[in-house]
């Protein structure tokens, strides 16, 4: 008997299973169509109904509109049916599919499907013919074995909800023409008989519109609010300054919030013109300068920014400038004193010249060429501080952060090994407990030991939430590092 005859024989035996498979698939398709339709049909009905009501908000729907609504709902249901069942109706299950489901029904070693496939490939080795014969034997034994299909999870509740929604919407569609007519009548009567009601409704609409609009805030109020916030920030800053500075600030606070903000920018200018702001100005919310004093001269801040020499002359011209005020001003403004900068530069230059003069004699190296020692501190991010990177030795950023991660958090943070595609493992990961014969998952030595001390180093065991936070942090850190390296 040739392989072709074997295949025909197998097809004859697979026929019932194939037909049953087709029916099962169709049933499953219908079920899926029902599930899909229970979602799509009410949605279509609702949307078209809403559109119809939008077109005629107070009136009855016309017959054409009703027909369009019902037609759209029915079309969507038909589309679901075609989508799920159309392909199944056109394409019958293959013989291979029938063999597969029969194997799946009770044949653990795929004998039937293998036999059918090998016969189809016309394989003639001894092992192939033996496999085909075993498959045919298995098919004879199990061709009438019942089988089922892996159906999607039962969605009875979903179907029920969809049908209920469809019925409710259909009822609305049926009842809406009558209700709409009555509404039109009532509204028409009311609007015709009582003009006062129109006024009332207009007032109501106006009230609703006012309620819907956000409260308009005047611009001066916003400016006053920002000024008061600025005042609070200045007060908080002054609280941390030394007492003498606080005293100075307190004496200037008496001039009012506007004055305070002004003095924070340039105290020397502030001292030079105390009469610019009246001390009796005790308004609770500070008014911005531009609003309160539109004709006031340019502020000291503007002056200092446009002409720094002028500020210096003023400060020098006052005879004995308040050093605390200057310090405070420089702290607040974040600027450095140009005089002190120049002095420092001069000192450095002079020192360098002296050392160069000594260097020729072989006395000592240039101290100005010295480099700071590398930081060996383990920061959380592993990043170095502001020290130059040319220093000798010291752990690299990677090692630094690796040690931090492992020591501080006890987290398994794997490391990257340069020059290798395969990543290395951190020691905490490498220390895995060996698997037992019945174990399925390995445990690390640290896990097995539980919370405790290792030598003189106390083991830090963060809770799970903290571990997750740290884990995410280090993962992102490492991934960004590796991305930078690859780039």
């Amino acid at each position, binding site marked *: *008997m040739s392989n072709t005859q*074997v295949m025909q024989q197998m097809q004859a035996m697979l026929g019932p299973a194939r037909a049953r498979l087709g029916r099962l698939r169709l049933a499953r398709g219908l079920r899926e169509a029902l599930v899909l339709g229970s979602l799509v049909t009410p949605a279509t009905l609702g949307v078209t109904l809403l559109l119809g009501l939008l077109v005629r908000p107070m009136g009855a729907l016309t017959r054409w509109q009703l027909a369009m609504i019902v037609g759209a709902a029915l079309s969507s249901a038909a589309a679901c049916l075609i989508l799920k069942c159309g392909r199944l109706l056109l394409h019958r299950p293959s013989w291979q599919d029938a063999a597969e489901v029969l194997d*799946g029904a009770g044949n653990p070693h795929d004998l039937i499907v*293998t036999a059918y496939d090998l016969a189809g490939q016309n394989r003639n080795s001894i092992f192939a013919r033996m496999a*085909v014969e075993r498959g045919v034997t298995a098919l004879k034994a199990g061709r009438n074995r019942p089988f089922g299909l892996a159906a999607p999870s039962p969605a009875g509740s979903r179907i029920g909800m969809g049908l209920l929604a469809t019925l409710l919407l259909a009822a609305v569609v049926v009842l809406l023409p009558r209700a709409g007519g009555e509404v039109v009548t009532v509204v028409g009567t009311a609007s015709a008989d009582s003009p006062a009601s129109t006024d009332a409704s207009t007032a109501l609409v106006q009230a609703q519109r006012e309620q819907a609009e956000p409260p308009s805030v005047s611009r001066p109020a916003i400016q006053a609010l920002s000024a008061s916030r600025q005042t609070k920030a200045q007060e908080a800053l002054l609280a941390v300054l030394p007492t003498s500075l606080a005293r100075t600030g307190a004496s200037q606070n008496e001039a009012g919030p506007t004055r305070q903000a002004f003095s924070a920018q340039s105290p020397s200018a502030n001292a030079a013109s105390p009469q610019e702001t009246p001390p009796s100005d005790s308004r609770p919310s500070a008014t911005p300068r531009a609003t309160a004093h539109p004709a006031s001269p340019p502020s000291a801040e503007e002056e200092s920014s446009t002409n720094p020499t002028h500020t210096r002359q003023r400060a020098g011209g006052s005879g004995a400038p308040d050093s605390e005020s200057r310090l405070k001003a420089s702290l607040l403004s974040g600027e450095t004193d140009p005089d002190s900068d120049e002095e420092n530069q001069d000192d450095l230059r002079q020192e360098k010249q002296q050392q160069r003069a000594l260097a020729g004699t072989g006395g000592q190296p240039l101290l100005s060429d010295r480099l700071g020692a590398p930081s060996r501190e383990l920061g959380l991010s592993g990043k170095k501080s502001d020290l130059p990177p040319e220093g000798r030795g010291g752990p690299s950023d990677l090692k630094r952060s690796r040690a931090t991660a492992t020591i501080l958090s006890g987290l398994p943070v*794997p490391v990257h090994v340069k020059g290798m595609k*395969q990543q290395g493992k951190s020691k905490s990961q490498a220390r895995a407990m060996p698997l037992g014969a019945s174990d399925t998952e390995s445990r690390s030595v640290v896990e097995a030991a539980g919370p405790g001390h290792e030598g003189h180093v106390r083991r830090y065991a963060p809770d799970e939430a903290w571990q997750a936070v740290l884990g995410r942090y280090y993962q992102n850190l490492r991934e960004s590092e590796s991305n930078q390296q690859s780039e």
Partner: protein
Amino acid sequence: MQESLCTPEEWKEGQAAIDAFKETFVTLRDQVRTQFIGQGALVDDLLSALFAGGHVLLEGVPGLGKTMLVRTLSQAVQLGYERIQCTPDLMPADIVGCMTLIETDHGGHQLTYQQGPVVSNFVLVDEINRATPRTQSALLEAMQESQVTVGTRTVPLPQPNIFIATQNPVEQEGTYPLPEAQIDRFMVKLLVRYPDPGDYHAIIDNTTGVTSPAIQAVVGGEKILTMRRWVRQVEISRPVLDYAVRLVVATQPEHTSLDLVKEAVALGVSPRGVQSLVVMGKVKALLDGRTSVSCKDLQSVALATLRHRVLLSYRAAAQRITQDQVVEAVLQSTPTTGHSA
């Protein structure tokens, strides 16, 4: 039906091959088990790889008998046996051999090739991850092509040929993890676990007495080659092969739909992984008395053949996701032939 498709002689011949395979396998297994107690699945997988024609990577903590298992197996087969003890200062020439100046009988000198331990049938590479990558890479050609090249000389390795390497998952300091190209050449990676508590008595009896059980060589090289040919003759149908391909493709993050693989895997299984999967499945089928591979056969060898070919991503390593977990997730999510209808 049987008479018409397969003659009785052919049927008898095929059945005899199957029986001989099973008998040889069981004989060898029993011989190994006289010395190596317990861990039946491990021994079965090791012998399956031997008959499938692949190399084996044994991984386990010290003291579990990895080296003893390999030594016992080498005694049970009549093959040339060499052992390479890997150390950080081991050089490639120590493995593959080198050209040496040798004094001849007539007082002259001759440059001759001194073969290394790799030129043998049965090679134990002990503690392979203690050798440097340059030395590890000396094994690449030998493992894949069964030959070594020294200078202009290419030396074929004697057949049958098998490399069994051991490595220790702990004590990673001072070791060199195997590169992907190296680890992919192992057909299976077998995990050596602790023996069952009930096996300890027999282990102690065997190893702490005056004498230890004698191992007899029960299988020769020719027999192993014949069995390897039988394994290759086992058939695999296209649907089952499709399942094997689906399994392997599901481990590749760029082709899979499995979220775990997308997140946890940096590099999936290579086509060489499918080859190993199918050949090991053929051995399983033959041991079960069948001449065709089924999806169940593939499932039973998937962990051993695929676990070491899955390269985990950084995130997975940090979250302690193991390669076995990935392979098991792939097995659960990939439908077999019977369930795809």
